[in-house]
């Protein structure tokens, strides 16, 4: 126990003097020594009494002490030394709402407005996502994380919305470095997939490389190990469910918009005969810099046909935030094997399975203006992607032509209001499909 030395305030002397003054009338007549001693004893007893009362008062006052009392409080030297453990101020209220001792509600939402500039009769406004989730901490090592998403506001047989479980996993910090995660979790691919809240990216709509090539929000079910090292390296790897190529619909355009999004299973009665493995490395050793990459591969015909086919997706990404700048870039490429055999029965249909697809973007943003908790950050993003970069040869006249790569330039700004709210506006220009040129507005929050 450390002693706390307290300065004795000048109060004691003051108190003694005032007592003396108050009682001086009583002493006026007797002047013998005995009488004086008796009076001194009485005084001392009364003084001790007052001190004790003062201590009590002080302790009561010391609690939410905001106002300054007129007189400084005294220090009872004889009082027992108070406990030393100087606890920090009461922890702040949770940024989410605290539902229990270890339970936190999380949420994010995106409301988007899109207006194609060449076809403004197709302008739409949408509650693109409404997400509710909770994290519950069982103890300092163990927690469960879940997230539920509603897309497009109203979900029913006649409405465009969808309700889905986006995350549902448990995590255990096994050693200081390693954690184990099991359940339905986000794949550590690219920059956006694990960090997809509207406050985390620039622009109203998520970029195409990380929606058409990397099928954000991409989640699989399985187990994952996560290691965080002291040199800034984060290692992730695991075994999960994969894709189902039998879901490929050659008659629709879904596969052309995003090959992997059209065959993902989202752990909804997913076929799990063929599992996949993945790994990711991310290095954040230098503050403000992130370099990383990932690889995912797994069979995808799920024993529904005698053909075998493997889906592989890898990516490289970097992010650099010097001062007020925010630069990022991602390259991702996917391949599907044995597509000649898979496409043989689908010849002639508009959308055959591509053998490869890839995408690349660079983006720069600058925090132009900030004041208190407002911040305005304009940005520019250039991206190029091709969802049907190559097809396996099926023979003359039967092999589809590779698609032309689409190139999109997005210019806009994010306007941040307080920590968790963002207003966005941008304009997107498409090289191939100029009918898609559009102006977008967005509102998002996250906590």
């Amino acid at each position, binding site marked *: 126990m450390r002693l706390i030395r307290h300065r004795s305030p000048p109060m004691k002397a003051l108190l003694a003097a005032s007592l003396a003054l108050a009682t001086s009338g009583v002493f006026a007549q007797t002047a013998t020594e005995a009488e004086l001693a008796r009076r001194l004893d009485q005084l001392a007893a009364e003084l001790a009494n007052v001190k004790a009362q003062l201590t009590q008062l002080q302790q009561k006052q010391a609690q939410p002490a905001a106002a300054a009392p007129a007189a400084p409080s005294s220090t009872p030297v004889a009082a027992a030394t108070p406990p030393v453990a100087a606890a920090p101020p009461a922890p702040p209220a949770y940024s989410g709402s605290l539902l229990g001792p270890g339970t936190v509600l999380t949420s994010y939402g995106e409301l988007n407005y899109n207006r194609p500039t060449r076809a403004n009769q197709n302008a739409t406004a949408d509650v693109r996502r409404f997400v509710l989730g909770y994290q519950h901490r069982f103890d*300092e090592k163990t927690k469960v994380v879940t997230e539920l998403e509603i897309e497009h506001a109203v979900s029913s047989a006649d409405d465009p919305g969808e309700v889905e479980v986006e995350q549902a996993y448990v995590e255990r910090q096994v050693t200081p470095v390693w954690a184990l995660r099991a359940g339905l979790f986000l794949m550590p691919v690219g920059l956006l997939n694990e960090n997809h809240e509207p406050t985390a990216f620039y622009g109203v709509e998520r970029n195409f490389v990380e929606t058409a090539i990397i099928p954000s929000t991409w989640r699989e079910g399985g187990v994952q190990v996560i290691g965080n090292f002291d040199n800034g390296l984060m290692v992730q790897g695991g075994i999960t469910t994969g894709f189902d190529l039998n879901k490929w619909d050659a008659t629709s355009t879904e596969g052309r918009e995003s090959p992997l999004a059209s065959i993902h299973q989202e752990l909804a009665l997913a076929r799990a005969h063929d599992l996949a493995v993945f790994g990711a490395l991310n290095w954040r050793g230098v503050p403000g810099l992130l370099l990383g990459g990932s690889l995912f591969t797994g069979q995808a015909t799920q024993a529904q046909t005698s053909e075998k086919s493997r889906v592989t997706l890898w990516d490289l990404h970097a992010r650099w935030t010097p001062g007020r700048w925010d630069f990022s870039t991602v390259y991702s490429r996917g391949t599907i094997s044995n597509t000649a055999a898979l496409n043989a029965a689908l010849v002639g249909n508009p959308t055959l399975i591509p053998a490869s697809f890839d995408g690349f973007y660079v983006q720069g943003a600058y925090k132009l203006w900030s004041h208190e908790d407002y911040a305005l950050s304009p940005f520019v993003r250039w991206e190029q992607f091709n969802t049907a970069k190559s097809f396996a040869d099926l023979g003359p006249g039967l092999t589809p032509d590779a698609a032309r790569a689409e190139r999109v330039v997005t210019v806009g700004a994010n306007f941040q209001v307080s920590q968790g709210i963002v207003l966005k506006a941008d304009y997107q220009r498409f090289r191939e499909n100029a009918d898609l040129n559009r102006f977008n507005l967005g509102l998002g929050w996250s906590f």
Partner: protein
Amino acid sequence: MRVVLAASAIVAAASAAVPTRAFAVDYLSAEQAAKLMFPDADAFETRQVALDAAQLQQLDAQGTRGRSANWPVRVAKRGGATLGFVVTDGVIGKVELIDYAVGIGLDGNIKQVEILSYRESHGFEIRLPAWRKQFVGKGNASTLRIGDDIANISGATLSCTHVTDGLRRIVAVVALARRAGALA
């Protein structure tokens, strides 16, 4: 207005004292951190700084919202002479509590930052010396904001921002308390 010293009484902290278990996510105790920051100190005296309404407003005007009015400050002393100050605090990253300690020198600038415990799934990198070193030498005159003079850790923006905000606040509170003569 005078700063009141609640010399003997302790603010009844309802919840977590700084953990001293040496488990995975608890890296240092407050005492260990204080010793790391001022190895020459032979004594640490705790002062309970309690801010009044006017001072809280002053902090607001500075652009630093004073979250709490009560701050225990460890004064590092050697042979009776003050070496500096150590403050421990807790902020929420995204959903989890981050406990940290900061050492402030006599010049009012940050001497050292230590992360005492970290539980978020992302952003462990704020523990790395490289990130914490950014704060050394910065004080009341600095901006101390993410995206300005402090670099972010990608994927852990909220943790970085809240810790940075906390450090900026503590620097201001210590400066205020010293001006009021409460930390002599």
